[in-house]
């Protein structure tokens, strides 16, 4: 009897704790969702309860976003920037992480940490020198400047991430391939890459998210609306003076966050589960 009570109490505590986290993390999304669907009179009436609809929901904000602003263009810009940065990051970080994990011995460790540290230099310090680079390449006020700049923080972090992953991968797999007749590069392509899909996917999603949410560089380098990525467009073009287009801002934020949420939930779990099992004893 006593035991049953204790069990119930511990279950209760567990679900209580989970519930708190769920509320904490889901609330912003809920807020975004209802705000984006509320009509303006509903939004700006202080007497209304803010947590639920007081008047009929409307898609007006979404219509405005797509018809009266460059929102679709911003989305496209973000997508292009994201894809380019992902490609550049992969092209640099996969070979770099592999070399650091396998070929540099003890110095590789220090070098890896050094590379990671550069990720920690805040963009607010870096944008000054980088703006000179951007200017001398004639990329001011163009979204291509972001394609150039974003890899400066995605590559270090992803190199470090991949280095850790490659280190954990049993080296015997590549060695067996090499003895079985592959070159070093052949072993890398036929063994290491397919086995790294979970890590590579992580890098892709991480890089894409990072570029999607970046704000400081975008704000400093770009002022033309048509060149803006979605984060910048929503935050700058939907705030006129001291008027916030709350409905549109929330609708924009919601749309931008949906693909990321889907990517995280669908892909990550599925790919990370046990691809590498069974190689060694």
């Amino acid at each position, binding site marked *: 009897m006593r035991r049953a009570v204790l069990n119930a109490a511990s279950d209760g505590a567990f679900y209580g704790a989970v519930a708190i986290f769920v509320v904490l993390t889901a609330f912003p999304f809920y807020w975004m969702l209802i705000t984006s669907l509320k009509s303006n009179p509903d939004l700006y009436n202080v007497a209304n309860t803010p947590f639920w609809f007081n008047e009929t929901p409307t898609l007006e904000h979404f219509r405005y976003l797509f018809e009266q602003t460059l929102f679709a263009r911003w989305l496209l810009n973000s997508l292009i920037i994201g894809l380019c940065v992902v490609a550049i990051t992969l092209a640099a970080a996969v070979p770099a992480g592999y070399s650091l994990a396998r070929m540099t011995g003890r110095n590789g460790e220090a070098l890896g940490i050094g590379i990671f540290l550069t990720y920690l230099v805040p963009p607010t310090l870096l944008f000054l020198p980088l703006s000179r680079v951007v200017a001398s390449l004639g990329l001011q006020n163009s979204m291509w400047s972001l394609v150039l700049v974003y890899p400066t923080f995605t590559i270090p972090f992803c190199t470090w991430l991949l280095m850790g992953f490659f280190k954990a991968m049993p080296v015997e797999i590549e060695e067996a391939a090499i*003895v079985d007749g592959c070159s070093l590069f052949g072993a890398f392509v036929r063994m290491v890459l397919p086995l790294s899909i979970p890590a590579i996917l992580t890098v892709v999603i991480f890089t894409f998210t990072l570029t999607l949410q970046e704000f400081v560089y975008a704000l400093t380098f770009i002022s033309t609306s048509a060149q803006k990525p979605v984060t910048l467009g929503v935050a700058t073009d939907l705030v006129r003076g001291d008027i916030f287009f709350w409905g549109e801002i929330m609708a924009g934020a919601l749309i931008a966050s949906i693909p990321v949420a889907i990517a995280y939930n669908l892909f990550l779990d599925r790919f990370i589960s046990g691809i590498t099992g*069974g190689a060694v004893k």
Partner: protein
Amino acid sequence: MAPVTARNIFKKFDDVLAVNGMSLTVPDGEFMVLLGPSGCGKTTFLRIVCGLERQTSGDLIIGGNLVNDIPPRARGVAMMFQSYGLYPHYTVRNNIAFPLKTQHVSRGEIDKKVNWAASLLGISHLLDRRPRQLSGGERQRVALARALVREPTALLLDEPLSNLDAKMRASARQDIRQFQQRVGITTIYVTHDQVEAMGMGDRIAVIDHGRIRQVGTPVEIYEDPADRFVATFVGTPPMNLVARNGGYLGFRPENFLPKEMINGSDAAEFSFRVDRSEYLGSERIVYGVLDGFNPAEVIAAKLPPAHVAEESIRPGEWHRFAVRRGALRYFDANGKRAMSH
């Protein structure tokens, strides 16, 4: 198929001298066993032979060619890793086929050879599984099949049977040996199991601390150990050693017999106090000390069949034991074999 020669190979890792001047010639078609305790450099030596590790100094010659600077894939040796190194994203079939695919062998030929290797090792029913769906012993056999499937210049096996149960180990031992003799492939087989070494090797190289202590046939290694290390590493229980005249006197437990068992006068006699007796079914081993020698030197005697079942020699008793002179081995103060002292 080619002879393998190592000349004065050294390998240094930072501050560890893993291989300390090993010279070894394995003639074409020989089954050479490297036997030594854990950490003595066996794996490192194999990795140097197959090219995964570059020796610090020394020469390696395979099939008459100096291969110091030849990459592994051009050396054409097959190696089975101590930890298998299976390809987790391939099926068993593709794991075994991989060395053939890199050689651009035709499809039909690949299928034939894979099936042959799989049935040799009794894993035909596993061909469509992936490594993570196999037991440890099954993985080991897949790794072995992958090493056997192509015709390499030399076959390197790093403790290939360590994960099998006793019964399977015995039959795999036989299979490997038969395969090796049929194909006549030069084989270097690493183990720290002396039963495997004695039973399989044409010759055995006993290694300790990165050095080869002795190379010889199983009989030579057992009967005429080159030094104290070999004498005490091979044999269960190992050779008895007692200090005498500034050197060491050695004799095998099975040669240390109750005096009445030895006919003829040419024998060394001892007073033996039995302290402990072990019954092992087919044999009985008694441990004790010799009168007049250091009591810390524990002496083992393997009793002849007549004494196994009946307990005629019991702990606490003193008995007269003897060793035929021809069975005595002498070692000098440094532990090297001597003719007498």
